[in-house]
C-alpha cells in the first residue's frame, strides 16, 4: 500500500532523513518508532504530501505523492502531531467542513458514526476551543477517518493523553486496523508492542531495524535473558554466575534475584544451575525473560550512535542487527 524508496529530506543544510526504504502492506498496522527528532514527523509529512522529499520516491496505493497528490490525499487520512483544529468552530461544523472538502455524501450520518467511534457524540455541538487535549485528539482522529481512508497516517496519536484515554485511542486504532492500513508513529514502545503488527525503527533520520514486534526481540537479542532466584544473599552468587562460560551482563535485580544474558546461540542454563547448586545455594527459580522493546530500542540506538557503525547502517539497511555491534 505504501512504498517508500530512497527517501531523503534536507532542511537547509541539515539532513533530517537519509535514504529511508520501507513498505507497508494493505491491512497492516505499522509502528514508526524513534526517539524525538528521529525524523518521524518529517517522514509522515512527506507521505501525506504536506511537503516534498529532497530525493526519493513515495507511492501510496499506486500513486506517486508528487505526481498525483490529489489522488493520494483522497486516499489518506492524516492526524498531525499537534492536532491543528479551528478552535472557533463546533465539533460538528468542523467535521462538516472537512466532509465538504472531502465531498462526502450523507455527511451527517457519517459524522454521527465517527463521533460515536471516538465516543464524542455528546460533544458534537461544543466548541473545539473548549475541549480538553484528549478530546481534541479524538476530534482529530474523527477527522482522519471521516472519509473511510484506505490509509491512515497518525503522528503520535496518544501523546498528551491520560492513561484511560490512551487505552481508548489504542483500541480505536486496533479496530481501525481491521479495515484500514495504518501507520502510526510513537516513541512509546509498549504502545507499538500492543497495537502494531510490525515496527520500523529509525534514529537520527536513518533506518535502524524493521520486523514484527516478536521477531524483533528474538532476532535482535539472539541471546536469552534469564532471571535467577536463590535462597539467601544474591551478591555471593554474582561472581559465580559471571564466571560461567557463555554468560554476560550479570546484574542483581533484587536481594535474591539476578538477571544475566547468554552469548548468542548458547544455552547456559544447565551450566549455571549446576554451578549454583554445586556451590551449596538453593536454586529457587531459573526462567527466561523476554527483552522489552525498550531494551531493544536502547540497544539499537546506542549502537547506532557509534560513528563507525552508523555509516555501515546507512549503506546497508537490510543488515542484521547482530552484525551492527
Amino acid at each position: 500500500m505504501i512504498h517508500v524508496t530512497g527517501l531523503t529530506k534536507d532542511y537547509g543544510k541539515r539532513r533530517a532523513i537519509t535514504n529511508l526504504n520501507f513498505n507497508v502492506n494493505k491491512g497492516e498496522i505499522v509502528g514508526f518508532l524513534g526517539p524525538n527528532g528521529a525524523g518521524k514527523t518529517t517522514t509522515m509529512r512527506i507521505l501525506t504530501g504536506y511537503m516534498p522529499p529532497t530525493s526519493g520516491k513515495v507511492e501510496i496505493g499506486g500513486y506517486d505523492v508528487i505526481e498525483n497528490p490529489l489522488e493520494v490525499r483522497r486516499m489518506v487520512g492524516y492526524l498531525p502531531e499537534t492536532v491543528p483544529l479551528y478552535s472557533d468552530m463546533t465539533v460538528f461544523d468542523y467535521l462538516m467542513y472537512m466532509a465538504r472538502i472531502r465531498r462526502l455524501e450523507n455527511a451527517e450520518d457519517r459524522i454521527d458514526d465517527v463521533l460515536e467511534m471516538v465516543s464524542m457524540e455528546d460533544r458534537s455541538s461544543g466548541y473545539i476551543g473548549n475541549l480538553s487535549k484528549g478530546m481534541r485528539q479524538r476530534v482529530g482522529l474523527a477527522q482522519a477517518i471521516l472519509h473511510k481512508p484506505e490509509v491512515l497516517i497518525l503522528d503520535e496519536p496518544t501523546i498528551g493523553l491520560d492513561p484511560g484515554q490512551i487505552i481508548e485511542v489504542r483500541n480505536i486504532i486496533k479496530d481501525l486496523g481491521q479495515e484500514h492500513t495504518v501507520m502510526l508513529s510513537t516513541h512509546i514502545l509498549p504502545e507499538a508492542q500492543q497495537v502494531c503488527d510490525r515496527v520500523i525503527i529509525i534514529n537520527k533520520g536513518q533506518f535502524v531495524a524493521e520486523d514484527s514486534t516478536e521477531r524483533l526481540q528474538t532476532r535482535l537479542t539472539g541471546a536469552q535473558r534469564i532471571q535467577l532466584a536463590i535462597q539467601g544473599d544474591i551478591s555471593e552468587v554474582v561472581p559465580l554466575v559471571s564466571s560461567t562460560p557463555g554468560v554476560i551482563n550479570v546484574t542483581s535485580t533484587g536481594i535474591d534475584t539476578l538477571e544475566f544474558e547468554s552469548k548468542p546461540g548458547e544455552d547456559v542454563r544447565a551450566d549455571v544451575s549446576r554451578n549454583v547448586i554445586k556451590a551449596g545455594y538453593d536454586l529457587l527459580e531459573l526462567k527466561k525473560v523476554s527483552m522489552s522493546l525498550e531494551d531493544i530500542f536502547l540497544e539499537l540506538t546506542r549502537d547506532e550512535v557509534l560513528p563507525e557503525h552508523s555509516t555501515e547502517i546507512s549503506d546497508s539497511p537490510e543488515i542484521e542487527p547482530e552484525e551492527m555491534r
Partner: protein
Amino acid sequence: MRNIWTIGIREYKHYFSSPIAYAVAFVIMLVVGILFYVNLVSYANYGMAPGIQIIVGPLVTLLLFTTPAVTMNTLADEQKTGTIELLLTAPVRDHEIVIGKWLGGFLFLLSILLASWIFPIILNQLVSPGIDQGELLASYLGLALMCAAFIAIGVAASSLFSNQIAAFFLTLGIIMAFWMISYPAQAMGAAGGEIIRYLDLGDHFYSTFYKGLIDLKDVIYYLSLTAVSLFLGSVSIESRRWR
C-alpha cells in the same frame, strides 16, 4: 470550484466569530456615520444638496486602512496554528485555498458595504429630487472592485507570514504604494509616467466610478490586480511546501 466555495463560506462565517471583523465593521460605520452627519450639516448651511460622494469618499479612505486588518488573519493564522497542515493534506489545490480565503474576505467586505448602503438611503430621503442613482451604483461597483483587489493583496501578503501584524503592515504598505504611485509618476517623463500612472489604485476609482462613470479599462484593472495577487498568493503557498 466547490472547494473554493466551501473554504470561502467557512472563512466568511469565521469573521462573525472574530473580534477584528466586528471592530472593522464598527469603525467603518461609526466614522462614515459621523462624517455623513457633519457633511450634511455643512452642506445644509450653504443651502446645497450633497451628492453620494460624502459617503463614498470617507468609505474609500477607511477601506484603505481597514482591509489589511480583515485579511491579516486569513493565511497567517492557519500557518501559526498549524491548521494549514490539514488543508494542505486534504484533496484541495493550493490555489483553491487562496481563492477560498479571498472569497471569504470579499464576501465580508461586501456585507459591510451593504450595511453602509443605509447612508445613501437616508440621503435619498433628505435631498430632493433624490440622489443620482447611476452615481450610486457606479460608486458601489467601484468600491466592490477595489475591495476585491485589496483583499487579494491582503491574502497574498498573509500567505507569506505566520505573524498577523507583519501581514497587516505588508498589506498596508503595498496598498499605500499603489495608492500613491502617481506622485512619482508626475515627476517623470511622459511615457514612463503614463505607465506608472496606469497602476495607480485611486486614479482608476476617482476619475470614473466616483463620478458615476463605468469604464471597462478600470474594471479590467481591478480584476487583473486581484488575479495577479491571488496567483502570487498561490505561488507563495506552493513554495511554502518546499521551504
